[in-house]
C-alpha cells in the first residue's frame, strides 16, 4: 500500500509556512482553552467556525487539530497545579499530579503529563494511519451489551480506588451516582431531581462536578484550616525528570495508548473512561502502590497518554466512517460539512490530499505542543509559590469562570458552590473524592447502555451476554474478582501460623 508515500506527501503540504503558522496558532489557542476550565475544545471550535470560513480548508483543519490536541495538553496543567481539572479527561491527572505538585514535584508531574500526551498522541496517530480501515469496521459492530459490560468492568475496577475504607468509598460513589441522575431521563424524557429548574434538565456537567469537588471543596477546606496550620513553603525541586522518574514512566506512557485508542474509536467511548482504566491499571501494576494517592508519577503518565491516544482514535472514527464519538468530533464534522467536505467512507478517496495533510499536521502539532509545554513546566510550577490566600482566591475565580463558561447560566454557579460544599464535607468526614467523580461519569452511561440493550432485545436479559466481546469482558471481571479471593485463601494458612509462633 502507498500509505507511507501518501503520508510523506501530506508532510510536504503541511510543512508550508502558512500551514505551520496555522498549526502554531492552533496549539497555542488549544493550550489556553484547555487551561481554562469549562471552555472545552468543542466550544472553542464552534466559536471559531465562522472565523475560519475565510481560510482554505487545509489550514482550518490543521488549526482545529492543533486546538484539539492542545486542549488535552492544557487540561492537565490546571489539574496538576491547582487541583482544578480543565477538561473531564484531565480529572485523573489531578489525583496523583496535585499531590506531586504540592510536594515540590510539580515540574516532574507536568513533564510526565506533557510527554505522556506526546507519546500517546504519536502512537495514537500512528495507529490511525495503520488501522484506520480496520477500526472503522470493528467500531460499528460494538453494541449496547458490549458497552454495558465495559461499564461494569469500569465499576469493578473503581472499587479498587475506593480508598482505605470501603464504606466511605461506596458512600462517595453513591453521591456521584445521585448527582449523575439529575436531568431528563434519556429514554423517556421524564424529569429526575430537577426540582422544576429547567437549567437542570440537561444534567450537571462533569466539569462542574469535578471543579466543584476538587477545587472549590479544597479551597473551602484550606480556608477552614488556614489560620491554625503553619504555612508550609512548597519546596522547589529540580526542574527536570530524573532517571528514576523516567524508569517509572516509560511503561505507563506506552501502555496508555493501548487503552485510549480503542476507546476513542468506538461510538460511546470518549476520553474519560480510558483515563480511569489506565489509572487503575497503573496502580495495580506499580511496585510502589503505597505511593498512589500521595503523588505517584505513573498515575499521571499513563492516563495522560491514554487521553491523547483516545483523541487520535476519535479522529479515526470521524475520518473513516463519519462517526463523531465526542462533542469535539461532532463540531469538527460540522466544520467539514461547512467546507463542503463529507467525512465518511469516501473521504480518503475524494479528499486524499486534505486527509493526509491533516494527519501529517497531527504529528507536527504534537511536536510543537511538546516543545511549547516542556520548557513551560517549571514556569507554570512557580504559580504554586503564590501565598495560599491569593492562590486559592485565584483558583476560586477560575473555577467560577469555568463553571459559568460551560453554558453561560448563573444557575451553574450555584450548583458549583453547592457541590463545593459537598466536597468540603466529604473532606471533613474522610470520604475519597475520586469515586464521586467516577459515579457522575459512569453512572448515566451505564444506565443508558443497560436500558438501551434491554429495549433493543425487547426485554430479554440474555442479550447482555449475547456477544463475544461482552462475554470476554465478563470473564475478565470474574478473574479480577476471584484473584484476590484466591490469593487470600492461599495466604491465610501462613498468616495464621505466624501468630501461633509467638
Amino acid at each position: 500500500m502507498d500509505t507511507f508515500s501518501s503520508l510523506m506527501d501530506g508532510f510536504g503540504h503541511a510543512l508550508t509556512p502558512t500551514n505551520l503558522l496555522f498549526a502554531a496558532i492552533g496549539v497555542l489557542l488549544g493550550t489556553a482553552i484547555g487551561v481554562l476550565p469549562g471552555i472545552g475544545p468543542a466550544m472553542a471550535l464552534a466559536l471559531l467556525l465562522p472565523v475560519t470560513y475565510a481560510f482554505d480548508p487545509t489550514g482550518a483543519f490543521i488549526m482545529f487539530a492543533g486546538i484539539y490536541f492542545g486542549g488535552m495538553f492544557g487540561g492537565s496543567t490546571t489539574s496538576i497545579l491547582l487541583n482544578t481539572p480543565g477538561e473531564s479527561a484531565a480529572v485523573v491527572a489531578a489525583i496523583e499530579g496535585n499531590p506531586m505538585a504540592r510536594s515540590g514535584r510539580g515540574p516532574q508531574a507536568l513533564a510526565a503529563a506533557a510527554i505522556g500526551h506526546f507519546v500517546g498522541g504519536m502512537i495514537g496517530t500512528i495507529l490511525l494511519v495503520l488501522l484506520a480501515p480496520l477500526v472503522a469496521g470493528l467500531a460499528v459492530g460494538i453494541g449496547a451489551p458490549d458497552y454495558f459490560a465495559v461499564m461494569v468492568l469500569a465499576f469493578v475496577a473503581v472499587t479498587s480506588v475506593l480508598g482505605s475504607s470501603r464504606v466511605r468509598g461506596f458512600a462517595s460513589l453513591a453521591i456521584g451516582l445521585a448527582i449523575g441522575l439529575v436531568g431528563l431521563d434519556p429514554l423517556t424524557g421524564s424529569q429526575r431531581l430537577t426540582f422544576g429548574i429547567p437549567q437542570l434538565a440537561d444534567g450537571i456537567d462533569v466539569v462542574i462536578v469535578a471543579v466543584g469537588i476538587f477545587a472549590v471543596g479544597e479551597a473551602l477546606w484550606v480556608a477552614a484550616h488556614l489560620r491554625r496550620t503553619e504555612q508550609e513553603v512548597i519546596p522547589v525541586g529540580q526542574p527536570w525528570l530524573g532517571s528514576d522518574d523516567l524508569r517509572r514512566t516509560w511503561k505507563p506512557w506506552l501502555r496508555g495508548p493501548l487503552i485510549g485508542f480503542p476507546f476513542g474509536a468506538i461510538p460511546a467511548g470518549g476520553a474519560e473512561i480510558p483515563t480511569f482504566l489506565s489509572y487503575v491499571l497503573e496502580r495495580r501494576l506499580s511496585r510502589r502502590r503505597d505511593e498512589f494517592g500521595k503523588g505517584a508519577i505513573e498515575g499521571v503518565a499513563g492516563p495522560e497518554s491514554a487521553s491523547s491516544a483516545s483523541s487520535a482514535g476519535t479522529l479515526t472514527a470521524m475520518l473513516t466512517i463519519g462517526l463523531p464519538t465526542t462533542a469535539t468530533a461532532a463540531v469538527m464534522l460540522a466544520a467539514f460539512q461547512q467546507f463542503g467536505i463529507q467525512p465518511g467512507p469516501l473521504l480518503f478517496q475524494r479528499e486524499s490530499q486534505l486527509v493526509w495533510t491533516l494527519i501529517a499536521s497531527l504529528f507536527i502539532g504534537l511536536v510543537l505542543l511538546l516543545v511549547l509545554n516542556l520548557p513551560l513546566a517549571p514556569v507554570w510550577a512557580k504559580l504554586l509559590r503564590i501565598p495560599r490566600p491569593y492562590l486559592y482566591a485565584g483558583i476560586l475565580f477560575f473555577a467560577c469562570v469555568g463553571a459559568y463558561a460551560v453554558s453561560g447560566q448563573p444557575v451553574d454557579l450555584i450548583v458549583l458552590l453547592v457541590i463545593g460544599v459537598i466536597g468540603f464535607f466529604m473532606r471533613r468526614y474522610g470520604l475519597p473524592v475520586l469515586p464521586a467523580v467516577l459515579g457522575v461519569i459512569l453512572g448515566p452511561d451505564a444506565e443508558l447502555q443497560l436500558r438501551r440493550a434491554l429495549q433493543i432485545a425487547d426485554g430479554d436479559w440474555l442479550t447482555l451476554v449475547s456477544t463475544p466481546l461482552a462475554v470476554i469482558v465478563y470473564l475478565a471481571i470474574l478473574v479480577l474478582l476471584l484473584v484476590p479471593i484466591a490469593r487470600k485463601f492461599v495466604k491465610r494458612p501462613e498468616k495464621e501460623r505466624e501468630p501461633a509462633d509467638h
Partner: protein
Amino acid sequence: MVTRTEPERAAPKRGARAWTAIVAAIAALLLIPPLIGSLSGGTDGTQLRGLRFLVPNAPGGGYDITARTAAKAMEDSGVSGSIEVFNLPGAGGTVGLGRTVNESGNDRLVMSMGLGVVGSVYTNDSPATLADVTPIARLTQESEIVVVGKDSQFKTIDQLIAAWKANPGGVPVGGGSSPGGPDHLAPMLFAKAAGIEPKAVNYIPYDGGGELLAAVLGNKVAFGTSGISEYRDQIEAGELRVLAVTAPERVEGIDAPTLKESGVDMEFTNWRGIVAPPGLDANQTRELVDAFVALHDTPEWKEALERNGWTDAFLPADRFGTFLAAENDRVAKILRELGLA
C-alpha cells in the same frame, strides 16, 4: 529567620507578575478572534442595527449553525450591522425560549428554533410556549429518511411495514433525538399512519446522528429515522439503504419513494425558523420580518443553503405563524397519545 523572609517575599511578586501575564495572554487569545468578527459589519445607515441572535442550544448544534450562517450572510450583504450571536442552551431549547418570552417588547432580539423546540415545550413542561412568541420566518426544511444498513433484511418499505405491524416491540427504531425531537416524532407519526399504535413503537434514542449511524450500520436497530444531510455520503457509498423519505415529494439524489407513494398517508419535514419576543407592535415586527425577507434574497444566503445542503422553505411572518400553530397541534396530539404531554 531574616534570610528566609527575603525569598518568600520576592517569590509572590514574581509569581503574581507571571500570573497577570498569563491571564492577559489567555484573555487576548480568546477575545481577539470574536472582536475581529464583530468589527467586520457594514456601516450603512438604513440597515438594522444592534440585533442579537439567541441560540437555544450549544455551539455547533443545528440551530447554532443556522443562526451563525444567517447572521454572517446578513452582515456580509449589509442587511444588518454587526450581529451578536449568543448561546443559551438547556432543556431542549426551552431555556432560551423562556428568555425570549421574558424579553417582551425587545425588537432587537431574535431566536433561531425549529421543530425540536415545539416538542421540547411539552416534554420539558415549559411554562413559556411558542404561542407567546412573535413568528418572524421559517427558513429551511429537511426531509427525514427511513434508513437501514446495507446488510439489513429489509429491502423495501413494504417489507419493513409488514414486519413492524406483525411485531412492533421486536422492531427497534433508532433516532438521533430524545423524545419530542424530530427523529422521535417521525417514526411515531409514521407508525400511526401505518396503523400501528404509537405507544407500541420501540423507540431507542441515540445521542445525535453520529451515534445513531453506528447503530444503523451495525444493525443494532431494525431501522433508523434521521435527517438526510447527515448521511448523504454513507448513502452514496452504499453503506446505508434509504427505504423511504418522509417529505411530500421525492428528494433529489436519493433513490427512494415517499411514504405517501408507499401507501402511508403521512408527510413530515424537520424545519428551522426564527421567532422574536412577544409584545412587538406592527412596525417593529415588520422591520424584523423585512430583514429576513431581505436575507432570503441575498446571494450569500443562497450560497449558504447550497453549502450546507439545506432546502429553502421560506415562509414569512403570518404564514409561518399559521404553520407553527398547525405543527404545534400535531406534535401536541401525538405526544399526548404517548403520554409525554
